[in-house]
């Protein structure tokens, strides 16, 4: 039993008479501690898959299983708890709370569970020790994304889901973020799923899932993932 399993997952959107399948029989597995990268062109259903995995969206058909639990059958309350306890989400546009400092932003996620990494510690870990009392408006893009990552990590989730984390960042900052993610995965044994349209970074992943036309067209296992510093694009 894989850590994360998607089997024949369908997600349909009805727009008038037209039906759009965001996920059209999606099937793939991901093992624990893997750094999985989901690549595909725009509109291929990558974000849909991530949302479904993150418990923010429901599927119409199919099985979604995370650590043995059937996520597709969860009701709202269960989904809320699932999101709170099991998932760490990193968004493309950071989604930090503007009223709260970096520290508080991390705390807000962490205070939801008993077992968490203290905010200051995790912020230091991501290299924002001096910026813990700054508001997101006072931080740069990279710093904000790092806060976001810290937020996700402090929860000690089972699954770390990243939706184009470097989308809004420049090359170097992006690289730095990716490195962080990779290190977390390796060091802490966290299962990281990364969604991107940038095929250049696929070498860093342990598993590459290619999505095409709302289905997993190719799953490639990488025995020797390349460290991020070495990848140029």
């Amino acid at each position, binding site marked *: 039993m894989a850590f994360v399993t998607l089997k024949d997952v369908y997600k349909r959107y009805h727009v008038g008479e037209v039906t759009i399948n965001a996920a059209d029989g999606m099937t793939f597995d991901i093992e624990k501690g893997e750094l999985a990268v989901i690549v595909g062109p725009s509109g291929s259903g990558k974000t849909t898959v991530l949302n479904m995995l993150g418990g923010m969206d429901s599927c119409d058909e199919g099985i979604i299983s995370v650590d043995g639990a059937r996520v597709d059958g969860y009701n709202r309350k269960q989904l809320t708890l699932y999101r*709170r*306890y099991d998932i760490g989400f990193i968004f493309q546009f950071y989604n930090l709370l503007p009223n709260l400092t970096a520290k508080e932003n991390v705390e*807000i996620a962490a205070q*939801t569970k008993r077992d968490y990494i203290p905010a200051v510690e995790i912020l230091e870990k991501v290299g924002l020790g001096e910026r813990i009392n700054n508001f997101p408006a006072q931080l740069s893009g990279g710093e904000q994304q790092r806060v976001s990552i810290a937020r996700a990590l402090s929860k000690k989730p089972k699954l770390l889901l990243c939706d184009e984390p470097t989308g809004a960042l420049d090359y170097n900052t992006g690289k730095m973020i990716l490195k962080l993610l990779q290190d977390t995965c390796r060091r802490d044994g966290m299962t990281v799923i990364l969604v991107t349209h940038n095929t250049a970074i696929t070498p860093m992943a342990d598993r590459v899932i290619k999505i095409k036309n709302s289905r997993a067209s190719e799953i490639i296992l990488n025995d020797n993932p390349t460290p991020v510093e070495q990848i140029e694009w």
Partner: protein
Amino acid sequence: MKAVNKNTFREISKSKSRFLSILLICAIGVGFFSGVRATCGIMKTSADDYFDGHNLFDLRVLSTFGLTEDDVRAISEVDGVDGVFPSKYTDLALHRGEEEYLTRVFSKTPDEINKVDIFEGRAPETDEECIVSYNILHEGLKVGDKITLEDLTEADEFPLVRDEYTVVGLYQTPMYISKTQRGSTNIGDGAIDAFMIVPEEHFTQDVYTEIYVRSDTLKGFSSYSDEYKELRDSISDKLETLGIDRSEIRYDEVIGDALKEIEDGEKELEKAKADGQKELDDAKKELDDAAKQISDGEKELDDAKKELDDGAAQLADGEKELADAKKEIDDGKAALAETEKTLADAKQQLDESKAQLDAGQAELDLQKAALEAGKAELQSARAQYEQGLAQYEEGLRQLQQMEQAYGSAAVAEAKAQLEQTKLQLDNALAQITQNEQIIAAGEEQLSAAQAEIDAGTAQYNAGLAEYEDGYSQYLDGKKALEDAEREYNEGAETLAQKRQEYNDGLKSYEDGMAELSDARKKYEDGLVEYNDGVAEYNSEIADAEKELSDAREEISDAGNAEWYIFTRDDNVGYSEYESNSERINRIAAIFPVFFLLVAGLVCLTTMSRMVEEQRTQIGTHKALGTQTARLCGII
């Protein structure tokens, strides 16, 4: 503090005004709603406390025939009744100076029922004092005012023992809590202006007007509640049942007396009718007799009058006759005198004429003689003439002969002489003729004179004869006049006598007339009296009959004795208060709800906007697994 809460507070402090205004509008909305909603209950509770504290009656019994002590006893035996308090009241007009207030005067009841609050002045201490309560709109009566009471109905007896009071206090009664409504009445303009309390002894009526009933169990319930109404209605039903029996008893009591009185009255009326009719009949008979007498008397008097008139006419005739006679006599006397005078004159005249005649005759004789002489003269003259004439003629013949013979010249002188002689002869003839004529005339005259004298003599003789006649007539006349005078005197005497008789008769008649007019007047008076008597009789009978029929009508109008049970709800102020609080309740059901709705809508709008503004944040939270409920805290 948890970060989530920090987020909330920071969000609030970022938009304080928005937060505060929403807070305020919600506060007002809620406050308004709850306040108005609560008012109804509070109003009712306040009222209930007031009523309980002042022992307001629960039920009030009135009867169309009044209430007695027995009724009081009967009521107090009804199940659930704890306090029974009889009372009297009457509606009068209260006068203070020029002002008039329609007042309901109550008898004083103990504090256990309808306790009053004296808020100005004090309670009365003497019989002349009273306390009043007035409609606040009139505000006329003050402590210290002296007032008089007046009964506006046409009752015979004034309902109180005194009609003058001094106001010593102003009070408030729990029975009428309305400021403007004080109940209605049958007198005046129908709206009561004020109340007054006097001791029960001041009322002249001996039955009670009303009975107040109280129940302790009812006191325990809230006045406007359903339990109160239920229990009160059940007690009221019991009282009604009781009332049916008691009012029958009362009706028999009252009506029985009244009926008996009516029957007595009817008997009296019959008797009075008969008596009266008899009196009237007797009077009528008297009057008729009198009338007959009067008409007889009248007839008599008429006859008498007729007689008198005849007599008067006769007298008048007689007088006229006498007067005429007198006149005649006087005339006769005058005539006689005149006749005497005339006769004397005539005699004188006659004598004079006789003398004249004699003289005349004498003269005439003389003249006759003269005339004869003249005549004789004339005859001789004539003879002369004749002679002369013959001579002439002879001469003429001679002349003529001569003429014939000699011619005219020779004869001319002779002719001229003849002519002259002719002329003389003619003159002499003329003279003779003239004298003849004169003599003839004279003769005529004389004969005329003689005739005259003869005539005169004849006249004289006639006159004398007349005079003789006249004289004898005069003597006759004188005699007749004397007779007439005697007769006249006799006649005058008789007339005087008759006149006296007439006067007596007239006087008698006048007396009779006066008597008759007296009698007539008396009769008229008597007739008027009789008519008055009849009218009086009729009107009195009619009045009495009307009274009796009215009384019977009254009895039937009075209808049945009935009890009327009034509750607090029949009191205007009480039920008005209840409906006011109900109204507020109903307003509270709608009005504040609108307010609240508006507040809600404002909140909704604001919240929607906030949610829109913070979509991303909310999404983030949800992604982090924050409970939706907690998220609402921000909103």
